[in-house]
């Protein structure tokens, strides 16, 4: 029997791992996009856990839509990424700092 606590703690770890990835990754833009996907995965799992324990389908419906949005988001993110690579020939995060101050 899976318990609510343990499930939520697992997703919390997953969520914090993706946050760490976002903060510590300083070189590859594409990994940042993957971290975003990971974050959404954690959130989705959260919803499914609650949906399961509440016996309520609404959580699953929410996940269904988050998946759709995440796919759309990935498409746009990758498009911007490609533009950046085309223009600057690099996707190094630490070189993207002309805007500051």
């Amino acid at each position: 029997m899976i318990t609510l606590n343990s499930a939520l703690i697992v997703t919390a770890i997953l969520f914090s791992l993706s946050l760490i990835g976002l903060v510590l990754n300083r070189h590859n833009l594409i990994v940042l996009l993957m971290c975003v996907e990971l974050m959404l995965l954690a959130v989705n799992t959260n919803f499914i856990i609650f949906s399961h324990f509440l016996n309520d389908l609404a959580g699953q419906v929410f996940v269904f839509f988050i998946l759709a949005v995440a796919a759309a988001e990935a498409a746009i993110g990758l498009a911007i990424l490609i533009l950046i690579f085309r223009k600057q020939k690099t996707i190094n995060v630490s070189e993207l700092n002309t805007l500051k101050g």
Partner: protein
Amino acid sequence: MFNFTLILPELFVLCMVCVVMLVDLFVEQRQQVLTYALTQLTLVGAAILTLCIYCIPTTANFSGLTVHDHLGSVLKLAIYITSFFVFLYSRNYFRQQNMGKGEPYLLGLCSILGMMVLVSAHNFLTLYLGLELMSLPIYALTALQRDKEQALEAAIKYFILGALASALLLYGLSMIYGASGSLDITQVANVIGANSTQHPLIFVFGLVFVVAGLAFKIGLVPFHMWLPDVYTGAPNAATLFLAVAPKVAVIGMTIRLLVECLPGLQVQWQELLIVISVLSMILGNFVAIVQTNIKRMLAYSTIAHGGYILLGFIAGTAAGYSAALFYTLAYAIMSLGAFGIITLLSKQGFDVETIEDLQGLNDRNPWLAFMMMLLLFSMAGLPPTIGFFAKLSLIEALVSTHFVWLACIAMLVAVIGVYYYLRVIKVMYFDKPLDNKPFSLAWDAKMAITINGLAILYFGIFPGALITLCQQLFWSGTMLN
């Protein structure tokens, strides 16, 4: 259960999105005016439809996913009107900067549809979908100037941090869903209201994440960092777009979430907002002082204005919420004009960027300089402009709920704020222009900017109607719960 009359404006905009898309595919590059005209027509039509159904009493629609009420309608109207002006100001910019044929209009309309969904959302699901539908086109709009490195950098920053914020918001919503067992705003409010003395910690835990997501979208410290970079890097027209209507929509979302859904947690979110608001007002005003880029300066001032808007929520009374809404509308008009003028001044291959670009504007086009002065006065909160009344009503709401110290801080930093606005006025009026050529505008742009500037004055001298409207929205009984 499914009342299609109540979502007529949304349906109309959606149909027109398809029409604009198809028309844009088949018309020639030079007949681009058709796309523009259709876009503006969509906004006008949506406004008319919204007005037609305005008087229908508050109803939850589509099994509670969306709600029809006066708050939503008023916010929608504000969105149409400001967006109408946005497209009017940016029309030339889109053409000159080679930002594609009809794409900006198409993306803009999609974003507006998202805002409409957002402000009348009555369920976490629609709230999230509306938010994403609003944001995704803006990410694209920011990157649409594909040859400009800064625009791309701004777009990816906005995108990644925006996704992070969405994820934080969702994480928070998932906690609230888990604790309350529902996604419906009214039901969640009822669950929380039921045991109002002692909430499970998980609510507070979720609340912080929700507030973080909201604070990101409004652009508040410490979730503000995207804002100056995006405002600066984005093409001027995109900055104009994202500075105005989305702000209104996000404040609408804040009202839905904090005021309608989580009033039971008011004590907690008040504390959070106080910290965020004070930090924002201070940071926004202080950092704006040392900026040389006008868009960046206005971006920091946006952060400060966001802090001011929160003051109304902190007051936590109907008067406070209506003051916050009034401030939001005032801010929308002000930033519309200010960014609008920056967009209008940009020429082919020349974006107005630094404050020096405005040098001697008075010699080149006195009327435009005068309008800009009015707008800046209003942002600084000097009478007799709308900005003054907006600040006044906020302070009043704060003082009447005994947050006098907060009101004092707000006034103090506002005084600091006056400095950088006046600096721009000084540059416009007392410095010699770099380029002596008189600057002329198309008639429609001239008229729009005149209406915009005079609105600042009109609502400053006769604020009664707008204030009353805002107050009525928060009378008990007009809201669904």
